[in-house]
């Protein structure tokens, strides 16, 4: 019997009917008539019994006939659903319920019942069924204590039971593993209200398949006798569980991979020697790597949570704060060195790189204490070296100096002696003269002592503006002594020479050193010229030929007429420990020290040498700009744009200089041919190519510039020649070989200057 509560009956409007077996008539009330679409009055009065079946939907009619027949033959109750046509052409579902009362002989004395419109319920049921199927949900209803559970079709299909409306409770719970709580009717179901969500692992009795089923439900106290009634749903979550498992294993592997990666990163974090930390914007150390402990001695919990500034050496607090401000501004530090205090009171120099990401600052620090110490040691060693160089030079001078000193002392002692005798003799007339002589000698000795002391004093580089001329003049004395008799010294001081920036001690030492080198290069004697002049290195020349900064310089040249150096030696001359002197004579450090000190004071050095003729060493000292003096804007010498495309042959063995000249010429509108030596030049000269000008270095390997010019003039008598020389203008080595149409220009020269000379020479030629 279909479960239909009293409330259901009352809720839906029911029609009443009665089947008179004897008279084979059917009668019903208004509602019944309405449901059947019959006339009210007729129905009340009674219609043929067949009427019950007449309008039933064809698909349902037989069933109902059979059911009624069943009642006729002994079945007590009638309970069936069928369809009747509705007014709008569609069908409505109705349910007929009836009871047959029988007398003692089994005859029906009464057969009557109700007819209910269950269209809505049917629809709901249909929807429910569809929903269950679509949603994979099965429903159940269980009255506690009963042996069976009311279930939906979907429920049976899901669990794997034969499809019935009622299933034995035992049958349902039998699909669970032995140790599982029951699906229905277990301890869970003893609570009122919503039942806890549960998952069950089942084995389907029909296929043996293992599935995961989830159950949700409610317990209400509205069962028979007000007892508990449990309604719920089950749904298959096997697929979901599979995904869950997959996800879990994926997560596990992911976790493993992440753990692996993290371990790797941890290894780096833990093993790196460099200090790594994570700080927040307020400077508080959130995390420090173990190396902090190794380097500074603090334990992590002594550092984490504290501000980094607490560990910075007090002297570096200012710069630290400033740096922090920069970081917050968005800058990344790189190579920022400050001292950190160690736990034991010591200090370490740390060079920091930082990177900010959002609120966190990641820092990476290298302990550079050793490096700095070494650098300082190196610096100290260099100083010592310089000092020893000085000493060496000093040593070289000592002989001569001692001799001079002796002379001066002799002058003093002699003078005093003479004075003593004269006083003894009572001859007081010339005492003044002798006294003066003695004083002069003493003063000269004192002066010399001062000079020596100043010279030997250990000082770090102290570049300041100095008067080059005065310095050179002051060295005159010392130089003469050093050079000896065989070498003629000439010091040329240009009165217009600018003030230069340099360390006077070092400069003196350098010049002295160069003088000694020069002397050694002229064993048979010769000439040494020291001159100073103003030069301007333009962009091109400075960067390419000299690797220096363009600008104004005071050039000091020390030129000798010694055996000179070949190109290879020149290229190595400034290298430390490079020496051409035999062992025992000189350390080979002189030139490298000079080069070093010049570079450190913003200057530069260069060598120009011709084997067999001599060498000039040039020191460029940056021009001192007087504060009062406005920066001189030197107007560039206007290059004459020839534009006529004259051909110029450039012969220069120094590649960088040659290229400079060639490019300058090209820019000025000339056509340039080039050669790096005399032979190459002659190829051009001997050819038919018209050449308007020859520019050649004097000191070429093999055929020198002079010779090239001579040969050229043989076939091209009017060829103008511009010689390029490394020697300073006053160097005696500058030969007087300039014939008409020949000129000389000294290196370094500005391109403008070159252009002007070239332009002038070509103009002259055109209009001789």
């Amino acid at each position, binding site marked *: *019997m279909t479960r239909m509560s009293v409330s259901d009956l009352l809720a839906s409007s029911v029609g009443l009917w009665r089947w008179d*077996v004897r008279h*084979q008539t059917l009668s019903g009330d208004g509602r019944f008539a309405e449901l059947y679409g019959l006339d009210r009055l007729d129905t009340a009065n009674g219609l043929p*019994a*067949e009427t*019950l*079946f007449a309008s039933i939907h064809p698909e349902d009619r*037989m*069933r109902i*006939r*059979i*059911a*009624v*027949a*069943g009642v*006729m*033959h*002994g*079945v*007590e109750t009638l309970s069936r659903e069928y369809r009747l046509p509705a007014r709008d052409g569609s069908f409505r579902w109705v349910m007929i319920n009836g009871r047959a009362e029988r007398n003692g002989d*089994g*005859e*029906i004395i009464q057969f009557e019942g109700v007819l209910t419109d269950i269209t809505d319920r049917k629809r709901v049921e249909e929807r429910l069924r569809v929903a269950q199927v679509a949603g994979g949900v099965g429903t159940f209803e269980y009255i506690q204590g*009963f*042996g*069976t559970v009311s279930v939906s079709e979907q429920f049976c299909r899901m669990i794997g*039971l*034969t*499809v*019935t*409306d*009622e*299933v*034995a409770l*035992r*049958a349902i719970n*039998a699909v669970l593993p032995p140790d599982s709580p029951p699906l229905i009717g277990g301890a869970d179901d003893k609570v009122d209200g919503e039942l806890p969500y549960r998952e069950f692992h089942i084995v389907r*009795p*029909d296929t043996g398949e293992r599935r995961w089923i989830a159950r949700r439900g409610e317990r209400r106290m509205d069962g028979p006798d007000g007892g508990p009634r449990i309604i719920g749903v089950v749904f298959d979550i096997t697929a979901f569980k599979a995904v869950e498992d997959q996800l879990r294993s994926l997560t596990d592997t992911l976790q493993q991979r992440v753990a692996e990666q993290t371990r790797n990163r941890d290894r780096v974090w833990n093993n790196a020697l460099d200090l790594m930390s994570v700080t927040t914007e307020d400077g508080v150390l959130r995390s420090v790597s173990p190396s902090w402990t190794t380097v500074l001695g603090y334990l992590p919990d002594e550092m984490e949570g504290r501000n980094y500034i607490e560990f910075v050496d007090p002297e570096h607090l200012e710069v630290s704060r400033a740096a922090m401000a920069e970081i917050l501004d968005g800058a990344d530090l790189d190579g920022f060195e400050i001292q950190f205090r160690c736990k034991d009171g010591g200090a370490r120099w740390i060079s920091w790189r930082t990177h900010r990401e959002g609120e966190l600052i990641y820092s990476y620090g290298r302990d550079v204490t050793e490096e700095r110490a070494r650098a300082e040691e190196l610096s100290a060693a260099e100083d010592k070296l310089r000092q020893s160089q000085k000493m060496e030079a000093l040593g070289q001078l000592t002989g001569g100096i001692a001799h001079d000193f002796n002379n001066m002392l002799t002058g003093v002692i002699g003078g005093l002696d003479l004075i003593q005798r004269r006083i003894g003799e009572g001859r007081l007339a010339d005492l003044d003269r002798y006294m003066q002589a003695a004083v002069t000698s003493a003063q000269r000795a004192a002066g010399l002592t001062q000079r020596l002391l100043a010279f030997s004093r250990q000082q770090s580089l102290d570049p300041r503006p100095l008067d080059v001329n005065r310095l050179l003049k002051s060295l005159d004395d010392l130089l003469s002594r050093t050079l000896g008799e065989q070498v003629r010294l000439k010091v040329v001081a240009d009165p217009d020479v600018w003030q230069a920036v340099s360390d006077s001690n070092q400069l003196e030492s350098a010049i002295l050193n160069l003088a000694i080198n020069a002397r050694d290069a002229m064993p048979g004697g010769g000439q040494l010229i020291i001159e100073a002049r103003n030069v301007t290195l333009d962009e091109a020349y400075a960067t390419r030929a000299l690797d220096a900064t363009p600008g104004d310089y005071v050039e000091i040249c020390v030129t000798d007429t010694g055996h000179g150096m070949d190109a290879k030696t020149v290229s190595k001359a400034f290298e430390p420990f490079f020496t051409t002197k035999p062992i025992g004579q000189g350390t080979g450090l002189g030139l490298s020290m000079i080069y070093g000190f010049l570079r450190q004071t913003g200057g530069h050095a260069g060598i120009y040498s011709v084997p067999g003729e001599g060498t000039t060493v040039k020191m460029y000292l940056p021009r001192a700009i007087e504060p009062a003096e406005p920066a001189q804007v030197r107007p560039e010498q206007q290059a004459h744009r020839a534009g006529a495309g004259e051909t110029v042959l450039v012969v220069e063995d120094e590649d960088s200089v040659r290229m400079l000249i060639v490019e300058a010429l090209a820019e000025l509108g000339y056509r340039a041919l080039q050669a790096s030596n005399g032979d190459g030049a002659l190829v051009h000269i001997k050819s038919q190519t018209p050449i308007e000008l020859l520019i050649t270095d004097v000191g070429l390997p093999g055929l020198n510039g002079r010779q090239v010019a001579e040969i050229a003039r043989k076939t091209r008598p009017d060829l103008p020649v511009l010689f390029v020389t490394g020697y300073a203008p006053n160097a005696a080595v500058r030969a007087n070989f300039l014939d008409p149409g020949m000129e000389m220009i000294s290196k370094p020269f500005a391109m403008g200057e070159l252009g002007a000379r070239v332009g002038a020479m070509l103009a002259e030629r055109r209009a001789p």
Partner: protein
Amino acid sequence: MSGAFTILSELEHDALTELVNIGVSRAASSLRKMVGQHVTLSVPSVEVVTRKTAAALIRERESELLVAVRQDFEGAFFGRALLIFPLASSVELVRAVTGDVLSADEMKEMESEALAETGNVVINSCLATMANMLQKPLTMSLPQVIRGDGRLFFELEEMDTRGGVVLFLYINFSVGGWDIRGYIAMLMDLPSLDALKSLINEFIQRVIGPEGQSNEA
């Protein structure tokens, strides 16, 4: 119907269900007279299944030993009818049938008899009524009480030479307030089922005829 082959059409199935319903109603009536108490028998469903499936259906629902009353029938169709109870239920049934006046020991003695008698009434009424409806005679053997499980009842051990089916019914009894559950199963071979089928169809035809012609037994 899982595991069953649909040899009955929907209409035939409905008709058969109704026939069984009629039979069971009669059985209820008879039982009522016998025990003098209120008896209701419900017929939730009728299924035509293989013997193997029938055994599985029982196994599905019952885990304990079963008691059955067995009676063979022949006439218009051959077969074996079983009224099956789980052991506990059978005890309940006995208690209900004997009016709960006996002691445990006495009940034990009476058990087989009580069961046999009940079985006889139910099966007899059921089958006889059906036969009546189908307008065919049917004779029944004496009832036998057997204990075992589905395998035994549905003769799965035997070589299946006849390829039979089982009309399987799951019944809820209510006797004097006691809820008892059991199963009625009718084992038939295919020729018998065929015979039954044609009878059912005849019945259907008759029923289509004018209403209310009662064929009272």
